[in-house]
């Protein structure tokens, strides 16, 4: 019998490379695939063509007012003229450097989070969830260190949207985690409180909560005590979304095999340490898509504050459109709002994908 000779390792076959290779493989691999690609391509051109023409090619970019606009072309003068209001609401123009500083700090903490190798990334994140909100409040609200106070009723536009979303997100996630742990607690009282809380907030529409916060809450507060409207909205949004977050996190906790808890216990870890070091890192990783979903929906739900008289980005654009001078440019206004929201939400979506990839430690056992 011949002695078995192992076969040598061969390099994998080269896959088709480059743009043309990709096209051939994905769009024109078979005759019916080619026909489908051509038909879809044709439809895209005849539908998208006019839209691109309207929005970009023949659009009007500069001018004084609606008189400079042309029919059949987008009128971006509207955005250009009212940009200050869309970004800051009624925030005094001469003080806008203050939110600007906060925004720059926000970018400095957030942008490096997209690059795993950025130096000091973790410290920036820590600053982002602790120092930045405090510093942001001091700067934007004023009233400290000789800074002129600016009432929250004058905050608005994209600035308000970002404040609501940012504070909502960094508060809803930890509250959600605590609620999820509480709901799985073995202590009936704690479990009961958490279940009641979650089921209450989850079962009421956010819009109702906001109405209640602005109409009902003052009825129950003692005379003379006023409660900032923005703060009420912020609390409403945060608690509402933390109930959702709790259920997302609970899903992750439930997916962790019992063996992980037991291994942690057997090594002598107490409850809080085993949660923090062993269970939650795994559970949160599993539910990154769900967390991203909740965070994105929180971001978009901030637009609902418009019904209680706060002028977020959408509110600012809408209120401008009720001005007779700008009535004809509603499409441009809403497109602008959509684009702003899309940029932020898409950013969050990309970030969650990055995070998922980075935290992937090989197939499960």
């Amino acid at each position, binding site marked *: 019998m011949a002695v078995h000779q192992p076969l040598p390792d061969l390099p994998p076959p080269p896959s088709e490379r480059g743009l043309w290779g990709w096209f051939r493989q994905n769009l024109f691999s078979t005759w019916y695939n080619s026909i489908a690609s051509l038909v879809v391509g044709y439809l895209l051109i005849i539908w998208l063509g006019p839209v691109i023409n309207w929005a970009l090619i023949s659009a009007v970019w500069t001018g004084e007012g609606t008189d400079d606009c042309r029919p059949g072309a987008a009128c971006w003068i509207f955005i250009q003229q009212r940009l200050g209001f869309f970004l800051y609401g009624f925030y005094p123009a001469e003080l806008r450097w203050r939110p600007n500083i906060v925004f720059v700090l926000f970018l400095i903490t957030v942008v490096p989070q997209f690059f795993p190798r950025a130096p000091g990334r973790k410290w920036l994140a820590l600053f982002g969830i602790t120092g930045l909100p405090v510093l942001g409040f001091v700067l934007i609200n004023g009233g400290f260190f000789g800074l002129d106070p600016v009432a929250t009723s004058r905050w608005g536009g994209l600035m308000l949207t970002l404040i609501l979303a940012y504070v909502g997100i960094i508060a809803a996630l930890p509250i959600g985690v605590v609620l999820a742990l509480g709901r799985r607690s073995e202590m009936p009282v704690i479990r009961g409180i958490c279940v009641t809380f979650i089921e209450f907030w989850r079962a009421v529409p956010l819009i109702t909560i906001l109405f209640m916060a602005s109409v009902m809450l003052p009825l129950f507060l003692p005379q003379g005590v006023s409660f900032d409207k923005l703060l009420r909205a912020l609390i409403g949004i945060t608690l509402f979304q933390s109930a959702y977050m709790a259920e997302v996190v609970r899903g992750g906790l439930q997916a962790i*095999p019992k063996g992980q808890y037991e291994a942690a216990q057997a090594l*002598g870890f107490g409850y809080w340490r085993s949660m923090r070091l062993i269970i939650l890192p795994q559970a949160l990783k599993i539910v990154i898509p769900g967390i991203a979903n909740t965070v994105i929906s929180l971001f978009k739900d901030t637009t609902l504050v418009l019904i209680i008289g706060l002028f977020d980005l959408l509110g600012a654009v809408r209120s401008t459109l009720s001005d007779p001078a700008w009535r004809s440019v509603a499409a441009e206004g809403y497109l602008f709002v959509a684009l702003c929201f899309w940029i932020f939400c898409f950013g969050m979506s990309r970030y969650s994908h990055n995070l998922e990839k980075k935290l992937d*430690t090989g197939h499960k056992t």
Partner: protein
Amino acid sequence: MNSEEHIIAPVESAAADEDIIIVRDLNKWFGQFHVLKSLNLNVKKGERIVICGPSGSGKSTFIRCINHLEAHQRGEIIVDGVVLNEDLKNIEAIRREVGMVFQHFNLFPHLSVLENCLLAPIWVRKTPRKEAIEIAMEYLERVKIPEQAHKYPGQLSGGQQQRVAIARSLCMKPKIMLFDEPTSALDPEMIKEVLDVMIELAGSGMTMLCVTHEMGFAKTVADRVIFMDGGECVEEGPPQSFFNNPQQPRTREFLDQILQH
């Protein structure tokens, strides 16, 4: 499965006189179901005990009572001089001294092999990180996988994972090691590498309680073999007499069944 080929020369017994585990009249119920019925066991320091028995006889439940992964309802368990009761301080103190190896490894998949071995020494024992790394590498070397230290558990074979799990427990420098069917989730060719590590550990004088069906291992290292059935200890004795001359018909039946293959 042919476990006979794992046999090497019997490991010298290291049992001292001192009782490190004392179990008296241990009873446990799952609801109405009486799982453990009046178990008694004294384990001397350095003694190696193999527990076997049919599926559902309560072997896992028994050894899980010893580090209080399961609570018992009647009787007394004293481990290393500490009485196990509902006091969390006692429980955590005992768990620090008692290592446990599971059937399904239960490594932490989000941490590298090295970090798996560092976590408990650093957070539970408060060992400085540098020292913890030295200890971890020493034990990874002892289980013969120092080169995998920076891989994640998901990238290792079952046998390698189980060896990491053993190293992870040893890094806490436990006085007692519990094994719950450490090889029964493994492919045959990986069983030996894990048993070799356990035999080596037995040789170092570790107090061991092993639930296993590897009779070759039992003959090699056990000071005593315990046969459980229906939550009771049916028979116990040194491996020689246990295997060659079982007293109870139930034991004989069980041994016939597992040694047939």
